[in-house]
């Protein structure tokens, strides 16, 4: 979308770029580390480049790496990626009124390119969906400028990471940096006591059920955590949204 001249010509495109720029450094560094982690986990350079260019979702990429390495079946990897990405499903419900005036291919391209930070900045800047055609065009330009910066920072630094990874010895164990990033993401998701519990239950279950074939321990872990939390909600009358900060 950022190749479109009519979108780039709008002042909101530049404002979107400017608002995202301070965050780009962090996104770029995370991309760099993801690039290194992919190659260090025995993916070929072609695979790592394809994953960077196509998947464009850091946490699902990082979650897929150990599963690919362990030879998990495709459906387990895809199901895990889907669960890790579930927050985007919530975002898409929020973004729907902002995008529905566009043809399907256009709103899906915007959707694909809108990651966490762009969603957050865009909905902060525009608390209300557009009412007039001028507002529609302004909002589209802002969103595009915003994710243009994210996309460039992420792609450039990820590919740099892929290129540099082969110069770093395997035994340094830098792939562990990917796990540490996921630690941060898990902590950022665990915003309520029940969610902390869900994470702990899932972690313990995944370890206990590790011997299951096909990496099914991940699927079992998600299922056990979700069902136990449902049961706890019901048993103790807890409200899952009460302490939510979203």
């Amino acid at each position, binding site marked *: 979308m950022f190749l479109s001249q009519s979108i780039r010509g709008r002042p909101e495109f530049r404002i979107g770029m400017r608002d995202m720029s301070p965050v780009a450094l962090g996104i770029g560094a995370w991309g760099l580390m993801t690039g290194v982690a992919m190659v260090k986990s025995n993916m*070929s350079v072609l*695979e790592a480049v394809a994953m960077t260019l*196509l998947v464009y979702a850091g*946490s699902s990429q990082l979650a897929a790496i150990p599963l690919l390495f362990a030879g998990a079946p495709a459906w387990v990897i895809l199901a895990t990626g889907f669960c890790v990405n579930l927050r985007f499903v919530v975002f898409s419900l929020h973004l729907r009124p902002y995008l*529905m005036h566009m043809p399907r291919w256009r709103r899906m391209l915007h959707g694909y390119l809108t990651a966490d930070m762009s969603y957050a900045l865009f909905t902060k800047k525009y608390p209300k969906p557009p009412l007039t055609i001028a507002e529609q065009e302004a909002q589209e330009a802002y969103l595009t400028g915003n994710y243009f910066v994210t996309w460039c920072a992420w792609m450039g630094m990820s590919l740099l990471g892929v290129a540099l990874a082969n110069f770093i010895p395997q035994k340094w164990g830098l792939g562990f940096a990917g796990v540490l990033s*996921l630690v941060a993401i898990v902590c*950022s998701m665990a915003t309520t006591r029940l969610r902390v519990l*869900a994470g702990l239950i899932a972690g313990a279950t995944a370890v206990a059920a590790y011997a299951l074939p096909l990496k099914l321990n991940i699927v079992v872990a998600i299922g056990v955590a979700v069902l136990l939390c449902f049961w706890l909600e019901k048993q103790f009358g807890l409200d899952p949204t009460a302490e939510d900060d979203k």
Partner: protein
Amino acid sequence: MSATTDWWTLGVIVGLALVTVLTRCFFFILDRPWGLPDWAHRALHYAPAAALAGVIAPEIVMTQGHLITTLHDARLYAAVVGAAYFYWRRGVLGTMLAGMAVYLPLHLGLGW
């Protein structure tokens, strides 16, 4: 590196890209408005954190499919320090750097 490219892995990568498109566009793919069943809404509260925790826990406390029996493992301390950093300062990058600052000396220096 001796890693080779295989078609199966590339196929999974394409599948993951489709998962990205599906999840990011979930509610505006179709023209008519619709919602999720109640149970799915409730599962959204827990599934993402559970999925990630399920992936990382074995990466931190297991070696070759067995629970580690020693405390001389750099990953344990790196993960604890990383999580502590996150609650102190927030930020993925800082968490990763703080964890690696603990991991690398223990792993390379002491061989943990």
